[in-house]
């Protein structure tokens, strides 16, 4: 799995940091998404997919490796 984030789209709702805190954080000043690991371990896949689905601004893209 490969994850990308778009900080321009991010509206700082924090759903990613709440749902998959091992993979996403928020910038201390701007509050926008910080990607901690673009290639998360398999145990995080479900949480990452949920975070992407929940993101209100569609700022998270998940590319599933085949």
């Amino acid at each position, binding site marked *: 799995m490969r994850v990308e984030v778009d900080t321009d789209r991010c*509206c*700082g*709702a*924090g*759903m990613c*940091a*709440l*749902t998959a*805190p091992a993979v996403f*954080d*928020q*910038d*201390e*000043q*701007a*509050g*926008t998404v910080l990607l901690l690991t673009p290639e998360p371990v398999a145990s995080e896949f479900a949480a990452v997919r*949920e975070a992407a*689905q*929940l993101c*209100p*601004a*569609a700022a998270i893209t998940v590319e599933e490796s085949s």
Partner: protein
Amino acid sequence: MTISLPNALPTTRPTGCPFDPPAELGRLRETEPVARMRYPDGHLGWVVTGHALARQILADPRFSSRGELRHVPIDVDRFKGKALPPVPRGMFIQMDPPEHTHYRRLLTGQFTVRRMNQLIPRIEQIAEEHLDAMARKGPPAELVHDYALAIPSLVICELLGVPYAERAVFHERTKLMLNLERGDEEVMAAFGEIMAYLGELIERKRAEPADDLLSGLVTGGELDHEELVSFALLLLTAGHETTANMLALGAFALLENPDQLKAFTGDPELVEPAVEELLRYLTITHFGLQRIALEDVEIAGIAIAKGECLQLHTPAANRDPAKFPHPDQLDLGRHASGHLAFGHGVHQCLGQQLARVEMRIGYRKLFQRFPTLRLAVPADEVPMRTKMGIYGVHSLPVTWES
């Protein structure tokens, strides 16, 4: 074409369950998840009751949040024959990107998950102090005044730097402003008073900045006086009225579902999913959210014309069985994520992580301290806020074994 809602959005909840959205909206969702609705001013718009559709529209930039494009969806005297007042500068919830983005970005860093988690010890302390006071006074208590309103009010006051001792200024006036049965003159007077108070507060911050959010905005220099007052009004009202109603209505819902309450008090792990489920089940944004088509758009095979208003009824959408099986059951064990209680899209609630922390602490501490808590009046005598923009209870008399 038939018009499914020929007059206005229904606001009463006649099914006998005070937690259910108006029954006709549930019926509408089964047959017409996007239905024609006549607004009281004559505007022919739409009401959306399906979860997937409401979510899709909330995330679609072709639908606007601009306040001046809105139509009032409910039939109340206050708005009859009157144009909506212009949107004050800085009132970003009624703006679209990029203007909305510019304003919201000034605040997003203040409401991160981490910052809200740092508030936990202080919020726990506030909750415990109020529960101590309830215990000292002895049963009965009135849960809205003694607990549910006090916690979020005190928290948002401390966060913003609003003296809590001055809370009467905004408690009484915001309640009046949200009451749809009050006259326009009375509401505008209350609005004027609260704006004057906040204007004066901003001046005090300018003269003597402290370590609080409003002082930071004042000294940050990005906002002028009018914008600062709008920000203060938004944060103060959104920060106390919404969470207060979730806390009281949520406690009522748990008391009315004893098996769920028993599960809640028996399992500390249930706190987080329980808060999401209460948010879904209760969805206190009484009339849902509103968007206006900026161009002709086709949604689910239906042509929406430019300028038409859509009422996205989030309380009904959060009861959509296609998204949440057996939606009318309060089931704290379910995975309720994806609910629309905080909205969706770039306007999704900025303070939602604060609300979550307050609710987790608020429900847990309440039922820990008073395990025998029960209503002090029959459930059907609890006064419900059917004529308010935010649903809930006006008061909740409770008692316990002391």
